[in-house]
C-alpha cells in the first residue's frame, strides 16, 4: 500500500497540467456533494459525499419517521456548512432503499432567484418539483385518475395567471413578455407553467406578481399529494425544500417562515425545509420556533488544532476522493482544514485554490507555503467586517458572551461559528479566518 502510494507520488505531480486538471475535475465547491453512484449513474466532476461525525442524519431520520406524514422540520446552519449535501445524501439514500415512502426534492435554486422569494413563489416551486417527480415516476396518462387532476390543476393555473387560451396553446404574460405554452403535451405544459410562474413570482417586483393566494395553491397541491398517498398505501410523501435558507430578504423570510405557517401546516406531507441561519437564531427566532419547533442545526465539522492532534477523518476522505492523497502534505491538509473553520465548502474551495497555486509555484504537491498563500489571500479577501461586528466578535472571544446581537454575524460566511454543543450548550467561536481582522482591530484600539 505504502509502496503504491510512493509510486503514485513519484509519477503524479501538480506541476504537470494534466495531473492538475484531473484533480480540479474531481472538486466542486458550488454543487452539493454527490454520491459515487446514484440510480445507475456514475458521478464525476463533483466533490463526493463524505460522511461526517455527529448525529444530524439520525435526528432527521427520527423526526421524519416518528411524525409520519406530519413532520415539519426546519434545518439551518452556516453558509457552506453542507446542508444541501446532507439533505441530498439522505434523500438519495432513502430513494434507493425503496419502500412505500415517496421522496420529493424541491429546490428553490433551480431556475429561480430565492433572495426575496415570497410564500407564493416557494409554494409554486414546491408544486413544480412535486409534479415533475410524480409525473416522472408515474406516467400520467397510464394512471386512473391522475390525468383528471392534472387537467384541473392546469385549468386553475390558466385562470389565476390570466392565460389566453386557443385550441392549441395558452399564452401567458410574464414580466410584459408573452410566454406561449402548447397543449399537445399536457404534462410538459403543466411543468412549464409551474416553472415559469415560480420563477416570475421570485424574480419580479412584488407589484408585478400575480398575488396568488397560497391557500388556493395548497388545496391544489394537496390533490396531487393525496393521489400519491393513495398509491403508496396511505403513506404520505416526504418533501425536502432546499435553498429556502437563501431567502435573505428579512421580510420575505418572515412571510415564508412565520406568516404562512398555517399553510405549511396544511400541506399533507412531511416537510423538511432549510431556513436562513441569521433568522432562525436571530430576531425571528421565537416566532419561528413557536411555529416550527426548534430547528435542526448542522454544525461545522470539528476544526483540527493548528499544530498537533488528530485531523478529523472527513478532511482526509475529501482529499482521497479527489485523488489528491499523494499530492498534498499532511501539514497542508491540517492548515487548510483549520482555516476552513470546519465549513466544508471553504475547505473544498481551499483545495482548489491550493492546487492551482502549487501548479504555478511548480511544486509537485501542496506544500504548507502554497496552503498559507491561499489562506492569506482568503483572510485578505473577506472585508465585510463592520466596527460593530468586530466589537461583537471581540466580546465573544474575550468574555465568552452569548449570541444576542451577534446573530446578525451569522449572515456572513466568515465571522462567527456556532459549533456542536458540549454539555447541551452551543459554543460560539470566531472563525479562524476572521482572527486576522480581529487582531488588526485590537491593534487599532490599542493605538487609539
Amino acid at each position, binding site marked *: 500500500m505504502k509502496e503504491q502510494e510512493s509510486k503514485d507520488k513519484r509519477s503524479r505531480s501538480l506541476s504537470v497540467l494534466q495531473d492538475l486538471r484531473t484533480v480540479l475535475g474531481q472538486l*466542486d465547491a458550488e454543487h452539493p456533494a454527490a454520491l459515487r453512484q446514484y440510480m445507475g449513474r456514475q458521478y464525476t466532476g463533483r466533490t463526493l459525499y463524505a460522511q461526517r461525525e455527529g448525529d444530524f442524519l439520525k435526528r432527521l431520520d427520527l423526526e421524519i419517521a416518528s411524525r409520519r406524514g406530519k413532520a415539519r422540520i426546519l434545518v439551518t446552519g452556516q453558509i457552506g456548512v453542507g446542508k444541501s449535501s446532507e439533505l441530498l445524501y439522505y434523500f438519495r439514500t432513502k430513494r434507493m432503499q425503496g419502500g412505500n415512502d415517496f421522496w420529493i426534492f424541491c429546490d428553490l435554486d433551480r431556475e429561480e432567484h430565492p433572495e426575496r422569494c415570497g410564500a407564493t413563489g416557494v409554494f409554486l416551486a414546491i408544486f413544480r418539483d412535486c409534479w415533475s417527480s410524480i409525473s416522472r415516476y408515474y406516467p400520467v396518462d397510464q394512471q386512473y385518475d391522475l390525468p383528471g387532476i392534472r387537467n384541473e390543476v392546469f385549468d386553475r393555473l390558466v385562470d389565476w395567471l390570466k392565460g389566453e387560451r386557443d385550441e392549441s396553446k395558452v399564452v401567458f404574460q410574464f414580466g410584459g413578455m408573452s410566454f406561449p405554452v402548447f397543449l399537445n403535451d399536457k404534462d410538459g405544459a403543466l411543468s412549464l407553467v409551474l416553472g415559469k410562474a415560480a420563477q416570475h413570482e421570485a424574480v419580479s417586483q412584488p407589484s408585478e406578481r400575480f398575488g396568488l393566494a397560497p391557500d388556493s395553491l395548497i388545496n391544489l397541491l394537496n390533490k396531487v399529494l393525496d393521489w400519491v398517498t393513495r398509491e403508496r398505501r396511505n403513506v404520505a410523501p416526504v418533501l425536502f425544500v432546499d435553498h429556502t435558507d437563501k431567502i435573505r430578504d428579512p421580510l420575505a423570510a418572515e412571510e415564508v417562515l412565520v406568516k404562512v405557517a398555517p399553510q405549511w401546516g396544511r400541506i399533507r406531507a412531511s416537510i423538511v425545509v432549510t431556513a436562513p441561519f441569521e433568522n432562525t437564531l436571530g430576531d425571528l427566532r421565537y416566532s419561528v420556533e413557536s411555529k416550527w419547533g426548534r430547528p435542526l442545526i448542522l454544525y461545522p465539522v470539528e476544526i483540527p488544532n493548528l499544530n498537533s492532534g488528530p485531523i478529523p477523518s472527513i478532511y482526509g476522505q475529501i482529499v482521497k476522493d479527489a485523488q489528491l492523497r499523494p499530492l498534498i502534505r499532511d501539514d497542508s491538509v491540517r492548515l487548510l482544514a483549520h482555516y476552513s473553520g470546519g465549513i466544508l465548502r471553504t475547505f473544498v474551495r481551499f483545495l482548489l485554490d491550493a492546487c492551482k497555486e502549487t501548479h504555478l509555484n511548480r511544486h509537485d504537491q501542496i506544500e504548507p507555503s502554497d496552503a498559507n498563500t491561499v489562506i492569506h489571500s482568503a483572510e485578505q479577501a473577506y472585508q465585510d467586517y463592520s466596527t460593530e461586528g468586530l466589537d461583537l466578535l471581540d466580546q465573544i472571544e474575550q468574555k465568552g458572551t452569548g449570541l444576542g446581537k451577534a446573530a446578525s454575524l451569522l449572515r456572513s460566511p466568515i465571522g462567527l461559528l456556532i459549533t456542536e454543543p458540549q454539555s447541551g450548550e452551543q459554543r460560539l467561536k470566531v472563525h479562524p479566518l476572521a482572527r486576522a481582522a480581529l487582531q488588526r482591530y485590537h491593534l487599532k484600539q490599542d493605538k487609539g
Partner: protein
Amino acid sequence: MTTSENLAFSIMEEKRGVSVLLWNDQDDLVRALIVLLAAIGDMPIEFSLVATEKHCETTLRKTIEKRQRLPADSTTKDLCGTPFWIFFIQQAVSRHIGPWLNGWRRPLSESPGTLLVVRQADFNAFQHNAPDLASYIGSQIYDASNMLSVWSKEVHGHLSSSLPSAITMILKELPGTSPDTNEIDRWIVANAPGDGEQ
C-alpha cells in the same frame, strides 16, 4: 503579488466558479483586462455593465436564464460555445445589485464561470449584500492595482493595445478615464518578456 495571466489560468483551468477583479484606477483595470483577454484567447465572452436593479430584472435576467436552461448534467460538448461572463458592477450600486447577484450565484458559477469586476471601495458592501455568492468566490479575488506587468511570450503575441468596443463602451460609464493606446503600446513594449522567459 499576482498577474492577470494567473487569473486567466484559474478561469480556464477551473472552467466554472466566480472570480472577482477589484480595481481602483481605470488605468490599472484596462491593463489587467488587456492581459486577461490575451491570455484567455478565443474563449467566447459576454460583457455586461450591471448598473441598476431594472437592468438586473430585465436584461441580466435574460442572460442568466440562458445558462439556467442548460440541464444540470450538461456535458462539456453541450457547454461548448457557452460564453464566459464578465460583469462590470457600477460604482456605489452594490447595495441594490448584491442581492440580485446573490440569488443567481448558482448560474453565475456554472461552467464556464463568471468574472465580476468591482470597484475596491464597494467590495465590502458587495460581500455584505451577497453573502452566499461571497462564499462561492472564496479567495478568488484579484486586485488590478497589485498586478505585476508580467506575462509570458505566448500571451505577449496576443496582446492588443485596445480593448473590444463592448468593454470600451462600458468603461466610459465607469469612473475615471482609460489610458490612450499609445501609452498602452509603450507599456507593452517596455514589459515584453525577455528571450529567456517562457
